[in-house]
């Protein structure tokens, strides 16, 4: 009991200073990392990229055997084909991205100083289509968007997330908005993301152990066996919001993009290992 209290103190500090007074993103990152280091002293930092399996030995073995024959292999193949198929105008996705779109997942999301907004990889994929007069792809329910995103993550495996927040008021506002959403209680059940993935991370809700909030974006999109398909990060956000009986936002809404910006910044230093597989 004493131990628990001790662990909670830095968070109350984070909560008070993190939300009320403004701390810099770098200070937040240090607090966030230290929290998880203290909460899970046996988890090496790099392992937080593995979500709940970084803290739950009992389910890890089964997961590792699934990853030996990954259920998302066909999605990566399909994503590669789609990625390389020319648009009607002859251009390809490669023309829209740095390094032809290969090995760049770790640079998303970023703050675009011209558009004054956060650009996620999936938004950039649709922006590329728009620029080339193609219809946008659906952000939810798997499909081509998730497959292309999975392929682009796959080509980036092993690259380290290094999100930089420019010293620009609007970039900082986007970060703050994402952080606020993460820490604000919501919905009929009155939970914040942080309630489950920060303070109570590692405890059981019925039979579900809640994963650490550090490292979530590294492995998306994720093949969920319960859905039998890929799920994008924003669809997963919607899933957690539905579960707490809060109204979910639209895929690629400002709310989710800002949230992804905050969460990915909090995952700096971890490797891209997407796509992943989960229950």
């Amino acid at each position, binding site marked *: 009991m004493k131990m628990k209290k001790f662990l909670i103190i830095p968070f109350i500090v984070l909560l008070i200073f993190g939300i009320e007074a403004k701390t810099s993103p770098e200070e937040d990152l240090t607090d966030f990392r230290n929290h998880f280091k203290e909460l899970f002293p046996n988890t090496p930092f790099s392992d937080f990229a593995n979500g709940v399996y970084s803290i739950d030995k009992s389910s890890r073995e089964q997961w590792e055997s699934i990853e030996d024959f990954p259920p998302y292999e066909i999605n990566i193949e399909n994503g590669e084909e789609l990625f390389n198929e020319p648009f009607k105008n002859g251009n390809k996705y490669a023309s829209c991205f740095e390094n032809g779109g290969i090995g760049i997942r770790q640079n998303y999301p970023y703050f675009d100083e011209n558009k004054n907004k956060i650009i996620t990889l999936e938004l950039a994929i649709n922006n590329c289509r728009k620029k080339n007069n193609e219809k946008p792809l659906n952000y939810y329910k798997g499909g081509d968007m998730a497959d292309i995103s999975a392929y682009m993550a796959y080509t980036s495996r092993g690259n380290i997330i290094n999100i930089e927040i420019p010293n620009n008021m609007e970039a900082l506002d986007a970060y703050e908005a994402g952080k606020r959403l993460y820490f604000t209680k919501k919905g009929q059940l009155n939970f914040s993301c942080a309630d489950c993935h920060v303070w109570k991370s590692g*405890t059981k*809700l*019925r039979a579900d152990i809640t994963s650490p909030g550090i490292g979530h974006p590294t492995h998306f999109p994720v093949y969920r066996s319960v859905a039998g398909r890929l799920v994008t990060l924003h669809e997963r956000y919607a899933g957690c919001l539905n579960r707490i009986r809060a109204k979910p936002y639209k895929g690629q809404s400002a709310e989710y993009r800002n949230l992804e910006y905050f969460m990915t910044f909090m995952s700096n230093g971890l490797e891209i290992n997407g796509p992943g597989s989960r229950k």
Partner: protein
Amino acid sequence: MFYVPSSYSDVIDEGKKLTFERKKGNCLACHMIEDGELAGNNGPPLIAMKARFPNKQDLFNQIWDATEKNPNSFMPPFGKHGILTKKEINKIVEYLYTL
């Protein structure tokens, strides 16, 4: 103000159902309770309720709105947010008193 039972054992049964049902209390999500399977562990086990809450109203209040006592409580404010009615919470309180 407390529910006056027509049959005490019916009330206990209903209270237990409300406590266990996922769409109602779903208290097992977080608390270990006698007879409950796949219980969570982020709240304290619900045992010796009568001894720990000699005043029924305190128990009712904890379920009605746990944020009253602890603003950061992880426990949903069942009454305040309309997840459970007053009547339902009273039945749950009667059931908890048997634990």
